[in-house]
Each structure stands twice: as C-alpha cells, then as structure tokens.
C-alpha cells in the first residue's frame, strides 16, 4: 500500500483534495452530497474527460496539442453536414463519420510533426489557426440548430426516482466517456503500443535506437487524440443540441490545465488515466460546489485559477523551499 501511494503520489493527493473539498461542501451545502448531484457532475464533465484522455496520450508521447478543441468544432460541423447529405443516419454512422474526421485531422498534425520535423506546439498552433480560420470563414459563424432527431434526443441509460421525488439519471455522454476512458486505459497500460508510447515520450532517441517506429508513434498518439476529439465533438453537439462554430474555442487550455494538474508531464513519459480523470473532476467539483454555495458564477474562474496555482505551487515544492532564507541548509536546489 505504501509503495502504491509513493508511485501514485499525484493521484492520491488529488483524491485527498477531492475528498476534502467534497467533505467541506457536504457540510456547507444541502445538495452536494447526493447521488443526483454526483450524476449531474458526471454528465457535465463527460465531454471534457473524453478530450482529456485523448490529450493525455499525446502528452505521454512527449507532444502537445493546442488544436484538438477547434478540430472537434470542425468535426461537429462536418458531421452535421455529412449527415444531411446521407439523409439522417444514426448513432453508428454519426460516430463513424465524426471519429474518422477526427482521426484525419489528428493525423494531419502528426504528418506535419513527423514528416517535416516541426515541433508539436508550433505545428498545432498553426493548425489551430488554420482549422478555426477556415471554419469561421466557410460557415460565416452561422450555427446549425437543425440536427437529426436521434442526435438531439436525450438518451437516458439509467434513471430512478429518489425518495424526495427528484429524478436521477445517467445519460449517453457518460457511457461514451466510460468507453473512451477504458479504451485509453487499455491502450496505454495493457498493450505494447502503450509501453512504446511511454518510452518514446520519455526518450525519443533512445526509443528510436531500441527499434520503436517513431513515425507510427506520432500517428497513433495524434490519431488517438483526433478520434477522442471527434467523438467528444459529436457528444458535445448531442449534449448542447446545437452546433456553434466557436463554442469549443478556448476549451483546449482548460482541458490542458486539468490534464497537467492530473500529473501528466509536459515533456512526455508520465501520466495516468486515473490522474487525468481526477484532474478534470477536481475542477468540475469545485465549480459545482461553488455553484451550490451560491457564489456568483462570475467568480468561478477566478477561484479555480487560484486553486490550480496554489495546487501546483504546493505539489512542486515544500514550504521551506519557498523561503530560502529560513530553510538554508547548505545545498540549494
């Protein structure tokens, strides 16, 4: 147990923080500690978690991607148009179209990065501007509200009436999220490709000499994120019941903050699915709790930003290191 805590320090400290915040919130508010609220949290966080596990794979492989949220917007729009062409479709065709469009956009990133040796942050900032600029140019910023019925109908997988008369429910986004989380977990911990991704992220040159095909790794990592972005984009359209070209603009940085908070290292080779999910949940729980406590929604971001700033300050250092004059003991870091 102790070694488990040591090897998963980030996950345990995140869990501890979540438990602490939840404990405070259950005393401070009447509604926080209820099954209904927990399910609401899951329904709300589903899309972000789908994005987050995709981004995690890229971070593990030593890359970074800024373009995925905008790519998801492109996928939403493209899928909505493609579904119009084929005359409706269903969940299967919707997921297939969205998934393959996403993979295509992700692989374009991988192509630029691998073929022309462009650093991933440079390549994805370029594609961010290309995708978003072209999307806004061709759509003229017009939203699509006329979506097929199957896409906008709420799919309730589990519902039950609570003793106090409220209904609790789990909807389709949660199921898709679970599938994506399990699939990502399987990919990075239970397959050879996963081990190779970690090795590649930790030390690309070492991995190359070891016989790992670097190009394949890039395409798998960015393709996987593309797949997740595509699926997440479709689910977001389902959840919001509309396609708005700039709705996901800016989401990439929020997701990035959550994933890195969850222990993934910018620079590669480190990160777990559990930590990533906990990172997203910590932010959602804080937001949800503030909402229930009646704090003005305008203050949410401020408090969340401060919490992340404090969390990284504390997780990267001990207090005495912050005060070099007190804690001087010969060796300095």
């Amino acid at each position, binding site marked *: 147990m102790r070694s488990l805590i040591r090897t998963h320090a980030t996950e345990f400290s995140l869990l501890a923080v979540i438990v602490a915040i939840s404990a405070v919130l259950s005393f401070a508010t009447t509604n926080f500690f209820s099954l209904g609220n927990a399910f609401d949290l899951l329904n709300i966080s589903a899309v972000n978690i789908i994005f987050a596990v995709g981004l995690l794979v890229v971070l593990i492989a030593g890359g*970074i991607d*800024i373009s995925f949220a905008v790519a998801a917007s492109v996928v939403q729009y493209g899928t909505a148009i493609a579904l119009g062409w084929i005359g409706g479709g269903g969940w299967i065709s919707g997921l297939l179209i969205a998934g393959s469009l996403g993979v295509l956009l992700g692989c374009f990133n991988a192509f*630029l990065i691998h073929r*022309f*040796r*462009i*650093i991933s*942050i*440079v*390549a994805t*900032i*370029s*594609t*961010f*501007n*290309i995708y*978003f*600029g*072209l999307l*806004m*140019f061709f759509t003229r910023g017009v939203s699509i509200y006329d979506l097929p019925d199957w896409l906008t109908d709420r799919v309730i997988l589990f519902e039950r009436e609570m003793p106090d008369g409220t209904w609790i429910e789990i909807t389709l986004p949660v199921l898709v999220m679970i599938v994506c989380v399990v699939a990502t977990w399987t990919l990075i911990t239970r397959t050879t490709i996963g081990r190779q991704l970690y090795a590649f992220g930790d030390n690309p040159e070492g991995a190359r000499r070891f016989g790992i095909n670097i190009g394949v790794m890039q395409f798998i990592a960015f393709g996987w994120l593309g797949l997740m972005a595509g699926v997440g984009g479709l689910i977001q359209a389902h959840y919001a019941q509309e396609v708005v070209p700039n709705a996901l603009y*800016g989401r990439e*940085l*929020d997701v*990035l*903050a959550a994933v*890195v*908070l969850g222990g993934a*290292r*910018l*620079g590669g080779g480190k990160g777990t699915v559990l930590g990533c999910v906990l990172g997203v949940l910590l932010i959602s729980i804080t937001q949800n709790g503030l909402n229930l406590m009646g704090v*003005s929604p*305008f*203050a*949410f*971001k*401020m*408090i*969340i*930003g*401060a919490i*992340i*700033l404090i969390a*990284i*300050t504390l997780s*990267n*250092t001990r207090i005495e*290191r*912050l005060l*070099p004059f007190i804690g001087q003991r010969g060796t300095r*870091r």
Partner: protein
Amino acid sequence: MTTVFERIKVAAGPEMAGPGLAFIAVVLIFGIASPQFLSAATFGSVAFQLPELGLLTLAMLLPILTGGLNLAITFTANVAGLTAAWVLKANGGVDAGLGIFLVAALLALMVGAASGAVMGLVIAFTRAHPILVSLSMMIFLRGLGEFLTRGGDISGFPAFVGVIGHGSIAGIPVPLIVFVVCVLAWHLLLGRTKLGFNTYMIGSNLEATRYSGINTRKAIVLVYTLSGIMCAIAGIIMLARFNSVRIGHGESYLLITVLACFLGGVDPFGGFGRVIPVFVALVVLQLLSSGLNLVGANQHLATAVWGILLVVVMILRWAVSRIRISIVRRGS
C-alpha cells in the same frame, strides 16, 4: 556593396531569412494582385493595427526565450487596462486630467508587473512548468476581470486618451511610436544588458547557467515581471484604441503572438531568437491581413493564412536544413 550586405546579414542574424523572404513574397504577391496594395492607406492601416498585436508579442517573446511561455498575456493586459479605466472613472471620467491619467497608467503598469512577478516567482522557485503556471494565472485573471466587471465593458475616458489610440505626430501614428520604442527597448535589453544575456543563457541551459554562478531565479522573476509590464502597456494602448475596456478584448491574439514569435525565428525551446526578425514577422502578418482584406477576404481567412504561412516557413526551414546536410555529405 558586398560588405554592406555582409554587415546587414551579421546585424540581422540567421533568424532574418524566414521573415525577410516572407516579407518580400507578401509585398510582391499582393503588389501584383491588387493595385491599391502598395499605397499609403495600406501602410497606414497596418501602422494602426500593428501595435496591439505587437506589444503582446513582445510580452510573449521574453518568456519564450527563457524556454517558457506566458499564456496570461491578453488577460494581464485586460486587467491592467481595467485598473487604468477605474482610476480614470473614479476621478472624473471624461473630465479627468493628465495627472490622473499618469497615475492610472502607473497603477496599470504595477498591476501588470505584479501578475508577472507572481508567475515568475512560482516558476522560479517551484520549477512548475511555465505553461501550467501561466495558464492558471490566465484563468484566474479572466475570472477576476469577469467577476469585477460582470462581463460588461467600461468606457468614457477623457478625449486626450483617444489621441494615444488614434492620433498621429508628424504623420506617424502614436501607437506605432509607442510600439517602436518598446521594440527598441527590448532589442537593447536583450543585446546589451546582463539580464538579456542571462535570458538567452537560461533558455539554452538552465542548469549550466545556474552552475556558472548566475542567479537564475532572479532573472526568471525579472523576465516575467517585464513581460507583465509590457502586457500593461498593451492594455493601455487597447484602452485608448477601443475607448473601452472589456475582459476578452484581444483574446484571439494569444496564440497568434506565439505564431509571430516562431515565424520570427525564435527557438520554441528557448535560447535563440531576436527582436527585429519578430518585428518583421509581425509586419508580414499585418500586411497579409490587409492584403487579403483588399482582395475581399475577411479576418478569419487571414487567421487561417497566418497558420498556413507558419507551416510553410517551417517546411522551408526543414527543406533548407536537408539540402545543407546533403551538401555537407557530398563535400566530405
């Protein structure tokens, strides 16, 4: 003639090739495509649009040179602008005097410096990744601004503030003068001062710099503080140009500043890059945007073309390095 050329080459450095070629290409292509392109009107509009993006790019440049990133730039600028706006509002609004404006500007600069200093301290003392630190600062500042303004905007400033945004002295726009002064300040800072030297050293190798007896923590804190001050200057210019302050003004510039830095030949891992090529890259971006506007396309297409331009420059750089390698191989 050749010596002059050599002199220019040495002064401009190897980073100049990309943006220089892009500049010539853009001027040639749009000069042919549109007869109005090579006119005073185009350069006038570029001169007024350049400073906003340019000042924010300067704020982004220093952290990138140390191997970091400052994602909080636009919201630091917004919050600094808000500070100035409030001081003006609280002291007469439209009737505020020049003294009040100076106090407002000073307070705005202090707010920018404070936000930068906090980031610098966290990055220097905890070794947390700059992307994450500046990201949480960005989220915090955006929230702070939205909380304080409720998402609305603040306007109503004395008339002379507008001069900073729209006026010209001897035919040269005032914001452009401010921007060029800042470019020169950064150029001197990086080329002639100890802090500039340390910035490049830290970007190349932090550990080696620390072992050579340089106080890297102090340098990092100073770099982010200066970056915050530059954001505040951008915030004041934005206040004057829009005659209002709203949280979210210039949000779309964030990633474009990074793009401009990379287009200007700055190494994404830090350590290499100069101010003047970045300045040229900015001019290229604005010329592209104005040129596309003349041809009849909109701002969003310009954004896409900016992205394509960066990819093309990166591919060309890759191709040149490949050719160079093959020449070296054949030579030996």
